[in-house]
């Protein structure tokens, strides 16, 4: 009994207080002078600390990451970095310089070659590769951070933060560190007396620093309609007709490909001609895609909840408050964690594209020799076993009469049978399997598992995989729409006819679609300028998307 009483139950807090004490030489309040940020990081972070650094695929705490890479490796070493996205050169420089040693992450697309090389060269120790929600979850379980480095637009002297449309994952990271006696440091573009709204209360924040330049923000979800091809339009028509209409899909998430941009742009034209307004695509878990503007303007869209913002969409969103989640100031409120969860549990359908699909329908975006991770697609691209609420589309996936039967999420993969450069998309074995061996991963990095996929759409047709009742039938259905790829060549013409009669596959003509009708003239907007017009000139595209 006596021994138990002597134990301190506040060791984390005491450690934090010691660090805060040492900061008195640098600042007497919450504001770290810009020029002293490296010194401040060397004071507030200890070797071996778990540091969560905000850097998802859009907003980057770029000032803080650059400062961390300038730290003295004799003072700061052996850090365990947690990053949802490894995007910037200095995210890996900290490992090259010996400041950090271990990493847990979700996505590393922009640094995927270096990740693979550094792993091969023993320059970093890999924890695990996660999906976004998993990584956020672990911040509260076994990867509780000692320090969080985050980015916001503005702060006041109390440390209250305004993130504007780009709230993204900031609240989640701050909560994990701020409520576990960790230290939270926020970089801001400016200090101000009055914030437009408070996105994160000052009492969750320990220090604020004004960055030398605004945080990096990528317009990642802007797709110029100019690049949409006739084949993508054909696929979009098939998706609208053969999936959205057929199953009555009212809530959904779209990937960021041109094929889903084509779907968004066909709703006010092709979708309208089918009389589908109000019957499909009403509620979205989606970033503010500019290509959704025509559908919004035509009254198709009731609500959109966003993972993050999109550069140029600020004014448009603020002027469409019925549709988007907005704060008192009128600007978008995004939240990556909540939107991922919504996309996982609350939507009927996920549609994404893939680089490779095997004969069982497993898909992967892995390229050999690179380590890109997952991001959020697997969170939405699976059937969540915990779902209990019903909807028309979900119930429509029920294929048996078992008294305990339940519905299923629609998980759709759209792919052309060949990628650019003559690479077949349908393959005997995924590169992910080779990558597992190359990199020494515990499991093959599969993006979407075949067992979760309900539909595959190619330029040949749709395979209704949820209807298949054996692996053999599944293979046949996939082969039937796999064109002249190695998998497609295996298909048996008679079997294909049978699958067609039974509704396990549908060709465009079975859906009443004439291939020759799939033309760019169907797009509600054919270029960015037309999106601007649709938006009442509220959409302000970044320079690289302006051609006029």
């Amino acid at each position, binding site marked *: 009994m006596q021994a138990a009483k002597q134990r301190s139950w506040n060791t984390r807090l005491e450690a934090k207080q010691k660090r805060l004490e040492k900061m008195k030489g640098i600042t007497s309040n919450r504001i770290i002078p810009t020029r002293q940020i490296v010194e401040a990081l060397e004071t507030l972070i200890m070797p071996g600390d778990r540091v969560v650094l905000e850097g998802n695929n859009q907003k980057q705490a770029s000032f803080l990451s650059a400062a961390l890479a300038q730290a003295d490796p004799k003072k700061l070493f052996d850090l365990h970095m947690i990053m949802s996205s490894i995007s910037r050169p200095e995210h890996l420089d900290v490992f090259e310089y010996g400041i950090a040693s271990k990493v847990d992450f979700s996505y590393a697309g922009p640094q995927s*070659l270096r990740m693979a090389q550094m792993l091969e060269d023993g320059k970093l120790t890999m924890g695990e590769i996660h999906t976004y929600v998993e990584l956020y979850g672990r911040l509260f379980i076994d990867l509780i951070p000692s320090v969080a480095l985050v980015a916001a637009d503005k702060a006041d002297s109390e440390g209250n933060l305004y993130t504007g449309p780009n709230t993204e994952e900031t609240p989640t990271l701050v909560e994990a560190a701020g409520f576990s006696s960790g230290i939270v440091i926020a970089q801001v573009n400016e200090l101000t007396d009055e914030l437009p709204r408070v996105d994160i209360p000052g009492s969750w924040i320990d220090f604020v620093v004004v960055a030398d330049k605004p945080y990096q923000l990528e317009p990642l979800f802007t797709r110029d309609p100019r690049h949409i091809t006739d084949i993508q339009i054909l696929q979009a028509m098939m998706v609208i007709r053969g999936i959205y209409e057929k199953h009555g899909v009212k809530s959904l998430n779209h990937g960021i490909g041109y094929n889903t941009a084509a779907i968004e742009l066909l709703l006010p034209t092709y979708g309208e001609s089918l009389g589908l307004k109000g019957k499909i695509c009403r509620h979205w878990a989606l970033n503010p895609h500019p290509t959704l503007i025509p559908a919004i303007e035509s009254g198709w869209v009731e609500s959109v909840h966003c993972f993050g913002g999109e550069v140029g969409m600020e004014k448009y969103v603020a002027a469409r408050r019925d549709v988007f989640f907005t704060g008192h100031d009128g600007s978008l409120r995004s939240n990556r964690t909540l939107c991922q969860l919504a996309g996982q549990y609350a939507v009927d359908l996920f549609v994404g594209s893939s680089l490779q699909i095997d004969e069982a329908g497993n898909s992967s975006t892995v390229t050999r020799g690179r380590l890109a991770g997952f991001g959020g697609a697997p969170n939405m691209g699976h059937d969540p076993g915990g779902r209990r609420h019903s909807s028309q589309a979900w119930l429509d996936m029920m294929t048996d009469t078992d008294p305990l039967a339940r519905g299923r999420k629609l998980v759709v993969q759209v792919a052309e049978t060949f990628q650019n*450069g003559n690479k077949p998309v349908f393959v005997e074995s995924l590169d992910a399997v080779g990558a597992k061996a190359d990199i020494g991963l515990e499991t093959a990095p599969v993006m979407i598992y075949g067992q979760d996929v309900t539909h595959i759409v190619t330029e040949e047709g749709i395979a209704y995989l949820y209807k298949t009742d054996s692996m053999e039938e599944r293979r046949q259905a996939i082969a039937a729409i796999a064109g002249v790829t190695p998998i497609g060549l295996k298909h048996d013409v008679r079997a294909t006819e049978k699958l067609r009669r039974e509704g396990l596959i549908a060709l465009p003509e079975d859906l009443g679609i004439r291939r020759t009708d799939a033309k760019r003239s169907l797009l509600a907007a054919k270029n960015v300028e037309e999106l601007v017009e649709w938006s009442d000139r509220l959409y302000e595209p970044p320079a690289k998307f302006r051609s006029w």
Partner: protein
Amino acid sequence: MKLAFVFPGQGSQKNGMLHSLPDHPAVLEVLQEAREVMGGNVFTLDTDKALKSTVSVQLSLLIASVAVSKAFKAEGVMPDFAAGHSAGAFGAAVMCGAVDFTDALEIVKLRGELMEQAFPSGYGMGVITGFDARTVNEIAAAISSEEYPVYPSNINAADQVTISGSIPGIKKVLDQAGQRGARTAELLNVSVPSHCPLLKSVGDSLYDKLASVNVRVPAIPYAGNRTARLLRDSEQIREDLAFNVSHPVRWYEISSLLCEHGTRLLIEMPPGNVLTTLNKRTLPGARSVSVDENGLDNCLFLAKKFCS
């Protein structure tokens, strides 16, 4: 945002390349230096006739690229990274301060001579587009024999790979690739089976020579041809300069790596724009220009604007 200089290798040479270099004092200085070291007229190296010899080709590439890179330096533009393709690696090594230009001239001359002597006839290279390196490896491995060896060599882009070896072996691989649906499969007009194990002895001899050359720690990272890593160590650069001749150049990875390290502008030194064409396809997020195509003044303007 970072700037990289890229230095082309064989295949980029053209008649009169040393005569058509930009007019700049630093260029003239380099030409003069070359003339002094080589004890002859450098302007005879770049005639059609002279360029039939790989020695003249490699020397011309080195002189042209170093001359222009020094013009950039004289104008106050220093890149963050230097990367050369095959013979271009020597220009990159000079640019980053790892090797003196005069030493580079000597090694490159020897490199050319050794390559010329190694396989006087019956050998060469081919190029396949439309397949990745893995597929080309597969095809070549199945066809290569002791009598007619053939190897996958340079990986220039995700879907552009060269093969090196005996002419009959190369032809078989090209045939096979064509049948399997390659976009193009062509024999290249070169007589040396570079960047494969057949040139191992050339690499060894070059290494012996390089052992006596002063290789310094580079002022900026040098992109290794064999490993596709950024090198900051003089010994690793020495090895890369010696042995790149007998190993595949991993240009596809090199260019991707430069981009991942923050490079957003790549300027190709003369001659030609071969690397720029590759880089434009591999790196849509970066800007790729060549001095030959865009002119020195425009490239300088871009670089200065970019670095400010």
